[in-house]
């Protein structure tokens, strides 16, 4: 792995649906100045008819405070619409950062998509 490129890949956001849940695959790096793009995409996706989002972070190699701010904004919008945000398989570096900042207390993380989808239904 070339760390220079590994942490600087372009931010990519792909959306798929699992019933009423939007699964958002965030990959690459949420570095400067991508936090706002991520925030806008998540806010746009969270609508009253489908307020819950599963974030697949298994290919997200880097996140900074702006990216965290985007996740928090999504959490707040989802909650206001009686939805919730969950995350699945964050990479080790991203998981450590989310835990350090206690974001995993707002956005629960799961080992697999199946576990996360079960939690939405619970």
């Amino acid at each position: 792995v070339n760390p220079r490129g590994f942490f600087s890949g372009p931010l990519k956001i792909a959306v798929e649906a699992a019933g009423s849940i939007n699964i958002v695959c965030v990959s690459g790096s949420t570095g400067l100045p991508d936090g706002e793009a991520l925030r806008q995409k998540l806010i746009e996706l969270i609508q009253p008819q489908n307020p819950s989002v599963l974030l697949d972070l298994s290919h997200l190699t880097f996140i900074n405070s702006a990216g965290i701010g985007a996740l928090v904004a999504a959490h707040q919008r989802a909650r206001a619409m009686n939805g919730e945000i969950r995350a699945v398989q964050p990479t080790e570096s991203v998981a450590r950062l989310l835990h350090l900042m206690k974001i995993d207390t707002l956005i629960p993380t799961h080992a697999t998509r199946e576990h996360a989808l079960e939690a939405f239904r619970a």
Partner: protein
Amino acid sequence: MQAPSEFGVDTSQMQELVVPNTLSGAKLPEDRIMAELARCGYEPDTVFAIKLALEEAMTNAVKHGNKLDSCKCVTVRYDVTPQRVVIMVRDQGCGFRPEEVPDPTAEENLERPNGRGIMLMQSYMTRVQYNEAGNEVWLLKEREAQA
């Protein structure tokens, strides 16, 4: 501008870049420093830490220090050796007192949109120090010994 003595760097030997006061302008020093880290073979975890701290320092300088004023600029100095990395970021604002920034992990602050940058820098760097005015931050990352 003088490096804190604990950082063990000769300020006159540091590379200097002056960039426009935009988040995209902040990419130039990042690219240069990332190239130096690659040249020295730094490990991925350390690269992650340095990229994170640098982006937080640049964001603070552009947004909070220079208040997004396009007439202002940000000065970055850096020195990368195989043993350690020293970075200085200075804005043209009037500074702040980092000790007055609330703990972003306190329950009442968890949902604040910002205010996490200082804690991230402090958590991921070996040492973080501000000048007295509070408009210049020094970051030191020492390389961990490899087994």
